[in-house]
Structures are given as C-alpha cells and as structure tokens.
C-alpha cells in the first residue's frame, strides 16, 4: 500500500478491482464503509462475480477474468480523450513529457525487440532520449509525437468502450458509468483509492494489471495524497515483512538484489545499481545503494566483510536464473532437487497444478515442514482416497514434520499492508514439544555450522563467519534480532558538519537509514527498517493512537521507511508546495520548511523552487507512465488474453497469453483449449476462511464447511445442475468434485458476441483439518507465471463442468 488502512477513510471514491476487500480484508474494508458514511464517498466494484464487496457498492460492473488491462486501457483512453486528467500533476510529477527513443514501437500486440524463441524482449529501445549532458530530454508542451504522453494516447486509443465490451464482456453503458465516476476524480480536490489484491497479481500479466491502474491514478493525480494511492492489500499478516526482508530467490533485505553471474565482481554489481539522476538536481535515492548493501554485508558477516574482500561479495550466491517456486517445482519434477523446506507454507494446496506438485515432492529425497498445523504438504505421501490419491509405498521421500509455535506463543513484529511494523507478545507456551521458529532455525544453522567446523566441506566460509552474537546461540531472542534488523554503529559516527561531534557512539543503535555508511562503519540487516529499534527503544511497540482523526496514527507502532505513513507524500502539494486540497493537507511547504502531518518523503533541505521531483527513488524524480526497461513484458500495459481463454486476443489475434510470460515446455503442452473447456474459471477466497489455515478452525469450518463451485442459473440450467448437487469440474490438468452453488451473482457475459459462462472456485479445503474434506482449484490451474514476478495464473483458466450423482470417496 502506498497509503495505509485508515487513510482509506479519506477517499471520495474507492474502486475495488482485482480484489475483494470486503471479503478478504473486512476490517480494512471498514474504512471504505466509513468514507461512504462520513464523506459521502462512492464505491465501485469491477469483478467477474457480484462479491461481498459489490453487495455494498454504489456501482457494480462485471468483467471477464483476465481482461483488466483492456478495461483499464479503456479508462485511460476515456480520461485522455475526454481530457479528464489532473494536468499540473501529470506534467510535473510524471514522465509524460519525457521523449522516448524513436526506435521504440508497438504493433500487432508486440513491442519492439521481441524474440519469439526466447519469449523475451531486447528492451534497448524502451528508453528515453538522453542528451549529451546525460539527462533525459523533455517536451513540456506534451506535443512531441515521441513524448510519453503522445505515445500513451496512441497506445490506448484502441480500447474504445466498444472494444472494452467486446473483450471484457462488461456492458458498454456500465463501463462508461465506471469511467465517468473515475474521471470525476481528476480534479485536485477529489481523490480515488485503488484497492486490489491477488485478483490482479495472479495473472500472466499481473504486474501490468497493477501498472495500468497506477497510470490511471497518476493521470488523476491520486498518488501521494490522502485518500488516494495504489493499495495492494497484502494477503498474509507478514508477507510484506518477508518480502521487505528479502526472503525470495533474488532479494537482499530492503529490496536490494542478489548479484547474477553476469556480475562477476563488486564493481560490475554496483554499476547497474547506484542510479544517477536522469534530470538535474533529482534526489535519485538509490544512489545510496552501496551504503545499504555494505551495511547489510557487515550485518551478515561482521569482521569477515572487509573493504579488501569487497565486503564479502563472494559470500553471496550469484544467480543464473530466478529460482521462484514454479521453477523449483519444475526442477523437482526433473529430479534436480534433493531437499526442500516448507516453513509455514503448504504448497501442495496452494501452488498451481497439484498433479505436478505431488510428482515433484515425490521425487525429493527429503522434505522438512515446519508448521503449527498438520498440513497436507507434510502428508502428501498419505493416501486419502480421491482427496489425495497417491501410491504411498512408491514415494521414497523422507519427511520431517516439525511442530512450531503459532502467533499466540511468540514475540516479535509483523508488517501490515500499510508497512506498519507492529510488535506482539506471547500469551501462552507452545503445546506439547512445539518450538519457536527462531529456535528451530537456530538449531538448523548451528548444527550445520558445527558439521562444517568438524568436517570442513564445500565453501564453508559464509556459514562459519555468519554473525551470531546472541546471548544464547541456540535461542536468539526476538529483541536481539529486531535490534539486528535495525542496525548499529560499528565505529563512532561523526557529525558530517562537525567532525569532532559524535552523533552515534560505537555499538549504539542507529536511528535512521540516513546514518548508514558504505565504509563498513555501520551495520543494518534491513536498511528500510532502520529506525524500528533505536536507542530510544522498541519503536514497533508504540501504542499512542492519537492522530487527530487523520488515520495516520504516527505514534502507533512504526512504519517503514522512516515512520512515513503515506509514500510519495510530497506529491500531495503542487510544485510550489501548496496542498492540492486544503481539506486534506498532508505535506506542504510552510515558507521555510516542509510541514504536515506525515514525515515528508522528500529532502528536508529542498526548496520548492529547486523543482526536485516527489518520486525521490526514481532517477527522474517523477513517476513513470512509461516504465522504460523495468518490466519484462513492455513499457506500457497491453491486453493479452490469459493463456487459457475462450476467445482469441481481439487486438492481436495471433498472440496466445502474455508473450513474455515464462512458461515451461511441458506446462505449455498442458494448456487446454476452449473447444474442450468452454467455461472460464477463476479461483478465490471466501471471507469465512483464511487460505488453507482456517479449515483447521472449528468455528470457520462451521461457517463454510464444504468445498463448492459457483455458477450462474443459466449455466446450471444448461448443464442440468441443481443447487446443492454434486458437480465435476475439470481442466486439462486435473479434475475436482464439488457441491454446486447456483447463484444470480454470477451471470453469463457477452464476449465478442457470444455468451461466456464463469465458474467460480474457492480455495480453502483439503484433506486435513476440521472442515469437510474437499478438493482445491489448484488441481485445475495452469503452471504459468506472471512475466515479471512469476505469480501463477490462478484467476483465469478454462474448465468444463457436469452434474454428477455423488461426491468423492475418501
């Protein structure tokens, strides 16, 4: 989220598209209801199903799964062709005026530089025209045919309301009503907030779905303002934290990245990271990359990381490819993986194409699960009839099931969607012999280290030299670890203005990432968290909720970065530093300094006349409508059909799926076509359940006991399916049996002139827990990931359906 939960209460228009906030985040959604009740705000829901969010919406518009870019392209086209944009914002705070390399082009659904064999682009033309001074060229009149603004107009012109209706199945009048409501927020004093979640990410072009809306928000001037923003409603309680902390194949904490093997040494590594400003005087905050990186390396390896060994650069693994989950399971199937750890994760029930997952896990030599609950993954080898039809005796995987504590038993911090780090306390001890996750990880680390100390072996240095300064090496405390995340001074830190004055003494906690150094005199595990546990104590445990009703709660817990509650908040005021909307002041120029209710996302010393852009992380200082080379599948979003679609791509008929999305060979072969699988399926969560967890909870099992699929009355009639009867739903990859919920909430859509039926498949059930045993849409979903971040395409695929007499046999 660029903003925070309670800030949604300050919006004028909430649009829920690519998510179902009422259902998935009820207590966050409350702020939409508050905005409606207290500000007269409106709510729009665009979704294939009439959801619980839609039940309280002012306007609902249906859409076919996987066609969001066409819809949003239509909105962009509407805004541009009706001149419903916030001009000052667009001109000054986005790259609309930037001139793009004339070699850049787009035709037949492809951008310049496509290589079909590699399914990838040569992105060299996707960039600005750069002058001899090294700065990007601009046309402030926005008239140059190569300026971003004009390219954008051209790119989105195809998405007329008629085209939107043809692709999305959204009736033209409804689409136009949505576009008109959105357009009403193009004035500086009206703000729209976008709330989305997996409904946008779980597509082969998920990242571009989000970009499309981000562009809408930039055109409306809604980023960096109260009641606005792009609000990704993260799924799990600390998935934000785990991502911040870099627990992914290619990340280092704080959104630094691992080196690739194309960067053999530290200089090569740094050459593509410390971004120089692309316009004069811009902040380009990533220029500080080295400070964050060196502080991280010092945090990891302490004394062993020296200037001489490039801060232990070689201790870090270098990637040839990204080892995301999809690739790892593909490698398992190929027999290339030996062992796998699943910590609080149940991939058998959550990753795509369950058949492939079972095959992969069966080929492992060993599997370790760590969970408070008895997961299906840990029992993937156990036969449960039709619910898990495996040949147990043939599976040679050795499995360890380690019992862990749950939230109620551990202490520490979680990062919510609004980037707040909140500290919590244990209320009881773990049951039986269950242990804290920290204890388990410490054991594994220490035992492995002991083996290397004793026996030597392959490159033991990073293991042996890993800092481990915990009072009890077998049981690091959350307090110790939190302080480590924050970072401390390894030498006295002097005031840059007065070399005799010590700002931070050696060994003391740092108070902000501005104190980080690239000379090895500071350490910080995660630079964006620096400030969370300072010499003033644990900032994450703060509990002063007073904020004068602004919803920012600046003294409650601690928010990264630098306790800032709304990102890009400098953009809430115009170039002169005057708030766009006086009733929603956020950060503004008070004549001599930047003032306001939030920590300015800006250099304190900048004056308005310096025209430093508000998007300080970008070398341009402005937000990017045209993303240059940052995205693998194009600098503008463009409509691609899902890999399994009922119709050909209306704007580029030859292209199947997202041409730059990664799909493995065997998985391509496993795709189904609309002649055999005529119905569009989409998977989702229900409010009664949380993921695969609450099926273990008696109460939630009561509230939604049994696996079902949802279909329209029309499809039910066509297929002879009765309400509450059993159905079989199958794709080219698998089959599930479910109860049928026949509802008016799903209606067939007219897509390209023909009625298209939608089958909704919730995912919550499995063969363990208190709820009825049930199947899972991941038996059906394709093994294809988003082009940029490899999120599987759970939200749009093809199935067939039939009525059956009875349910599965356990």
């Amino acid at each position: 989220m660029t903003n925070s939960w309670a800030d949604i209460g300050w919006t004028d228009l909430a649009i829920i598209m690519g998510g179902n906030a009422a259902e998935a985040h009820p207590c966050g959604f409350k702020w939409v209801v508050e905005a409606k009740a207290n500000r007269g705000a409106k709510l729009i829901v665009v979704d294939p199903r009439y959801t619980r969010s839609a039940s309280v919406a002012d306007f609902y518009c249906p859409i076919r799964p996987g066609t969001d870019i066409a819809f949003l392209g239509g909105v962009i086209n509407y805004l541009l062709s009706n001149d419903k944009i916030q001009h000052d914002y667009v001109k000054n705070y986005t790259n609309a005026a930037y001139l793009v390399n004339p070699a850049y082009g787009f035709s037949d659904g492809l951008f310049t530089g496509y290589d079909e064999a590699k399914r990838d682009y040569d992105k060299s033309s996707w960039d600005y025209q750069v002058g001899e001074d090294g700065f990007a060229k601009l046309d402030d009149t926005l008239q140059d045919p190569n300026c971003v603004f004009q390219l954008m107009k051209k790119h989105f012109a195809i998405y007329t309301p008629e085209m939107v209706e043809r692709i999305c199945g959204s009736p033209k009048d409804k689409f136009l009503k949505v576009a008109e409501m959105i357009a009403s927020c193009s004035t500086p004093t009206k703000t729209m907030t976008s709330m989305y979640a997996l409904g946008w990410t779980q597509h082969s072009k998920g990242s571009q779905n989000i970009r499309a809306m981000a562009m809408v928000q930039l055109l409306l001037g809604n980023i960096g303002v109260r009641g606005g923003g792009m609000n990704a409603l993260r799924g799990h309680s600390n998935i934000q934290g785990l991502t911040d902390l870099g627990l992914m194949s290619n990340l280092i904490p704080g959104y630094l990245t691992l080196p690739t093997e194309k960067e053999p040494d530290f200089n090569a590594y740094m050459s593509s990271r410390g971004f120089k400003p692309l316009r004069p005087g811009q902040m380009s905050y990533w220029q500080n990359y080295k400070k964050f990186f060196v502080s991280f390396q010092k945090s990891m390896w302490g004394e062993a990381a020296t200037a001489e060994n490039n801060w232990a650069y070689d201790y870090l693994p270098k990637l040839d490819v990204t080892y995301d989950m999809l690739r790892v399971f593909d490698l398992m199937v190929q027999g290339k993986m030996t062992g796998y750890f699943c910590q609080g994760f149940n991939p058998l029930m959550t990753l795509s194409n369950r058949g492939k997952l079972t095959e992969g896990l069966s080929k492992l030599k060993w599997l370790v699960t760590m969970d408070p609950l008895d997961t299906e993954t840990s029992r993937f080898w156990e036969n449960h009839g039709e619910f898990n039809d495996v040949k147990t005796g043939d599976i040679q995987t050795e499995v360890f099931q380690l019992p862990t504590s749950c939230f109620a038993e551990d202490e520490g911090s979680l990062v919510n969607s609004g980037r707040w780090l909140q500290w919590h306390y244990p209320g009881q001890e773990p049951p039986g012999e269950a242990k804290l996750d920290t204890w388990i990880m410490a054991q594994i680390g220490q035992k492995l280290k002991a083996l290397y100390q004793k026996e030597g072996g392959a490159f033991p240095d990073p293991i042996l030299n890993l800092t481990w300064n915990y009072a009890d090496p077998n049981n690091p405390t959350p307090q110790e670890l939190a302080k480590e995340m924050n970072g401390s001074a390894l030498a006295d830190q002097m005031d840059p203005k007065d070399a005799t004055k010590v700002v931070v003494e050696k060994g003391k906690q740092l108070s902000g990432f501005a104190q980080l150094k690239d000379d090895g005199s500071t350490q910080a595990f995660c630079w964006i968290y620096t400030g969370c546990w300072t010499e003033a104590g644990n900032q994450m445990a703060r509990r002063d909720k007073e904020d004068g009703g602004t919803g920012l709660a600046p003294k409650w817990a601690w928010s990264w970065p630098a306790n800032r509650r709304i990102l890009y908040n400098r953009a809430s005021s115009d170039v002169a530093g005057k708030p766009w909307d006086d009733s929603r002041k956020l950060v503004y120029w008070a004549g001599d300094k930047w003032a306001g209710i939030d920590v300015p996302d800006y250099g304190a010393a900048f004056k308005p006349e310096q025209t430093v852009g508000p998007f300080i992380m970008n070398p341009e200082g402005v937000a990017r409508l045209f993303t240059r080379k940052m995205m693998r599948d194009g600098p503008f979003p463009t409509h691609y059909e899902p890999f399994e679609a009922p119709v050909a791509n209306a704007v580029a008929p030859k292209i199947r799926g997202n041409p730059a999305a990664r799909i493995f060979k065997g998985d391509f072969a496993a795709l189904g076509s609309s002649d055999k699988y005529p119905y569009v399926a989409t998977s989702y969560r229900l409010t009664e359940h949380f993921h695969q967890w609450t099926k273990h909870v008696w109460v939630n099992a009561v509230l939604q006991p049994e696996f079902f699929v949802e279909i329209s009355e029309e499809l039910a009639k066509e297929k002879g399916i009765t309400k509450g009867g059993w159905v079989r739903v199958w794709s080219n990859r698998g089959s599930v049996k479910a109860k049928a919920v026949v509802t008016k909430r799903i209606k067939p859509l007219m897509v390209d002139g023909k009625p298209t039926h939608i089958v909704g498949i919730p995912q919550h059930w499995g063969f363990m827990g208190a709820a009825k045993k049930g199947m899972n849409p991941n038996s059906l979903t394709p093994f294809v990931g988003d082009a940029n971040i490899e999120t599987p395409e759970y939200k749009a695929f093809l199935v067939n359906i039939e009525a059956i007499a009875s349910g599965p046999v356990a």
Partner: protein
Amino acid sequence: MANQSLNLLRRSASTDTPPVTGGQTIEVAKLIDVSKCIGCKACQSACLEWNNLREEVGVNVGVYDNPHDLTPNSWTLMRFAEWDNPDTGNFEWLIRKDGCMHCQDPGCLKACPAPGAIVQYTNGIVDFVHENCIGCAYCVKGCPFNIPRISKVDHKAYKCSLCSDRVAVGQGPACAKACPTAAIMFGTKEDMKKQAEKRIVDLKSRGYANAGLYDPAGVGGTHVMYVLHHNDKPEIYAGLPHEPKISPLVAAWKGTGKVLALGALAFAALGAFFHHTVVGPNKVSEHDEENAAELAEEGKSSKTEARPV
C-alpha cells in the same frame, strides 16, 4: 467470579410485578445496518466464541447460509437473499443478520409457562434464564420472528441474550464489537435511532427512496432494529416479517381467556356443590330395591339369575 445482575421489567409466567425502580433506566438497542453489512459472518463467529457454543460442521446445500438455520448453538445467522430489483433492473444481494429482536412486547415471554424462564430487563433485553426453562417450546410459538430453538441435548430454549453478561459490565454484545463495517452498532435505543436517521438520509441520497428503520410497532418496537434499503418490503430480506405482531392465536391462547377458563372450572365445581346442597343426593329408595327384587324373582323363575355383563 463476579455476580452481575440486571433489573427486571417483567418475568414470564409470573404474577409478581417488578417494582418501578427509582432512577433512570436507559433502553439499549442493537442497530443492524443492512446497507453496511458485507455478510462476513464475523458476528456468527464472535457469538459462537463468546458464548462458548459448539455448532456442528455441516454441509453445503448450494447457498452461503451456514448453518442453514438458527439452532440452539447458533444464536445468530447471516441470511443471504438474492434479489433482482424490478425497479432498477439491478441485482441486489441482501444480507441480513438474523437473531432475537428483543421485542418490547415479547411473544416468547408471553407464551412461557415457566415462572422466570424468560425475563425482560429494564434496559429492554429479553433473556432466557435456563435454570427456570422447562423446554416446552411455547416460546417458539410465541415468537413472531421464529427465533428460539430447543436443544435436543438439555431440552432448554436458546437464543441471543444480547450478551447480557457483557452489557451488565458496560460492554456491547460480542457481535457488535466484532462487526468490521459497523453494520452492527450498540448503544441506547435513542442513540441508535438517531444513527439510523443519519443512515437513512445517506441511503436516500444514494437512490434508496424507501430506506427506513425497522422497529416494528406491532411488538411494541424492538431492541434490535434494522436499517433497510427497502423498508417497504422487509420480506425480501430472507423473510423478515412485514408488520410482525404476536399471533392472534397466541394472544387467544395466552390471553385473559385463561383466567376465565380457570374461573369457569371453579364455577362448575362450585355449581355441583350447590346443586347437591339444593337437590340433595339422588338416592335409591327401598321401594326401588323391592321392585328390582321382584323383577329379579320373575326373571329367576323364567331364567336363571341376573348375570354380570
């Protein structure tokens, strides 16, 4: 453990009239704003947890309503109604939290034969006192909203208590506390009515011309009220009764007829007594006996003897 209590307004099957207590009493109410409700069932969950209830894990029967009805263990339930609005052509998903309405004139209390099994506190809450309940299910018959359920385990009646144990210590009901969207609010009835007014203005501004407060006068008003977008048609909300009142059958059954009936029975017994007093016993005379004997003799000569039947 603390022992809290609430002042009584009335008590089932009881001839005692609680004293009019001095001081001010405030009527409380729960306001269920259907237009804010997202049907998340947090209220059901909170109710089960607060009241330590254990409902059975059921099955799916093709709808979202689970359990499928109120039960002795499920005192509240989201009811989902799918409705195509004929006026706008739009589909509407009407979700209503069902449960005890805490009527000012409670039909259950009226029907209850067990003294003190159903009580109404001065704050308006209608509560079942289980140690007094005899499980006759008369409350089920008395209720105009079909709320109470009789346990198959202990044969006692159960329903929402409006969390009287929480209210007694100054907290609101568990469902109201949990409700994420403030679709359930709790406070004084007066405040809730004011809150409803605000909501109705907002709903009317959004095109719901018939938005209104459901506080049915037929049962003297309720301490659980609804804000409905279509207050002219409460029945579309999964059968919320239009102008509910205690059934005339119940009124007849439990009305003053009872006293008259008892009087009549007493009168009949008394009448008999006076008849006896006036007319005296209907005795067999010696003459009758002789006549009978004669007849018997005649019979004996012709046949044998009088035989028993």
